[in-house]
């Protein structure tokens, strides 16, 4: 019989109180580790464990749902073999910024909540003040930004030199 969905418990039985049958705290990657991804995971774990007041003021740890939404964005946006894995910067409200910086160009995504993201970039075309857009579910625009951003890979730059 095919495995039912995780949230589909049919076929099981209950006693009055059943014991937890397997540890729930951490789940390993289901796919082979990819260089860069382990670092992203470690960073997100680190930010989720920040102590209250970590910034010297009233900073709180990264909010659980924001961490997962940030991970979802990175998963969708990044070719995980890219040399430009992002930096992840905590905000004092439990929010995070996902940032790419290279050769004077930057892309920054401020994840304020799931489906509430402000994206900003600067480059030669848009100038120093940069360009800002608000995003909810569709991150295609950022995919394009990243493609333009990574167009100048070290290999390409070396070839052009």
């Amino acid at each position: 019989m095919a495995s039912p969905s995780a949230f589909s418990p049919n076929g099981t039985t209950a006693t009055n109180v059943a014991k937890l049958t397997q540890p729930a705290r951490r789940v390993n990657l289901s796919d082979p580790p990819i260089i860069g991804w382990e670092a992203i995971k470690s960073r997100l774990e680190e930010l989720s464990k920040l102590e209250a007041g970590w910034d010297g003021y009233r900073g709180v740890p990264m909010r659980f749902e924001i961490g997962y939404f940030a991970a979802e964005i990175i998963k969708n946006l990044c070719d995980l073999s890219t040399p430009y894995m992002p930096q992840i910067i905590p905000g004092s409200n439990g929010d995070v910024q996902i940032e790419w910086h290279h050769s004077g160009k930057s892309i920054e995504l401020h994840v304020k909540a799931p489906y509430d993201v402000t994206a900003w970039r600067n480059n030669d075309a848009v100038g120093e003040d940069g360009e800002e857009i608000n995003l909810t579910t569709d991150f295609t625009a950022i995919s394009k930004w990243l493609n333009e951003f990574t167009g100048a890979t070290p290999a390409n730059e070396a070839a052009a030199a």
Partner: protein
Amino acid sequence: MLGKGSEKGIIFSTVTHKNPMTRPANLPDFEKPPLNEVVLGVQFAPAPGYQQIYAGQVWELFKKDFPLVQEQPALPPSFETFGLPRPQIGFDFIGAGHDRFWFLRENQHELIQFQLDKFLHNWRKVGDEKNEYPRFEHIISKFSAELKTLETFFQKNFSAPPLSVNQCEVTYINFIYESDTAGLDLNDVFSFLNFETSPDEVACNFTRHILNDKGEPRGRVRCTLNQAHSAKGPFYRLEISTKGAPDSHSITDALSFVNQGRVKIVNLFKEITAPPAHKLWSIK
């Protein structure tokens, strides 16, 4: 902008029916649908201050109707997002810090699933699978009341803000037993199949985007068909689900998403199954 699939996306707002408690008049209706399980669920921002040690108090809210309990591993948060296609990888960077609890009715036909950031209500066939489907309106009516009870609990005990829903889902799982469709070939059951010789093994899936009235993607309809086997014999397992972000974080909009998702699922079920099978399931 989306890929080609977006051109075939489903615009939710064309569904004018928004009251989840009454059945839309034009919705396909089967007297004996092959439904085995229905799941309605939401994912929400954890209530500040709430911890697993209070889960027993949550059970108390529902214990009268759901006196049995089971502990399960938590489900990871999930979000429907859209971008250029990339290889998908599975991950979990940290656990929820909270198990998932099933609160079950004595007869186990229905259960609530609760964890730090999710709340789901399941109806399912159990035992000899003869328990009757109570219909969507019954289930969403219960689900709606339960969500409001949970919201009030968080507000009263943790001074939490209103429940902030960030993801909704509806899933219909159908078991189409070969013994129930004897005399029909595969093409008579599934309208999208057209075999001269039936295959020995079947497995397929597809998705459609769900768009809001601005044409922006808000979620996906997923359909999966495969073969399985139970004590009753071999069957086709047809799972159709809708999952995505509600228009706002409110319970009202979450229920609206769930309701409209159900409409999409039922219409898709009729679309991908064939008239001879419809007759078998007593379409009205």
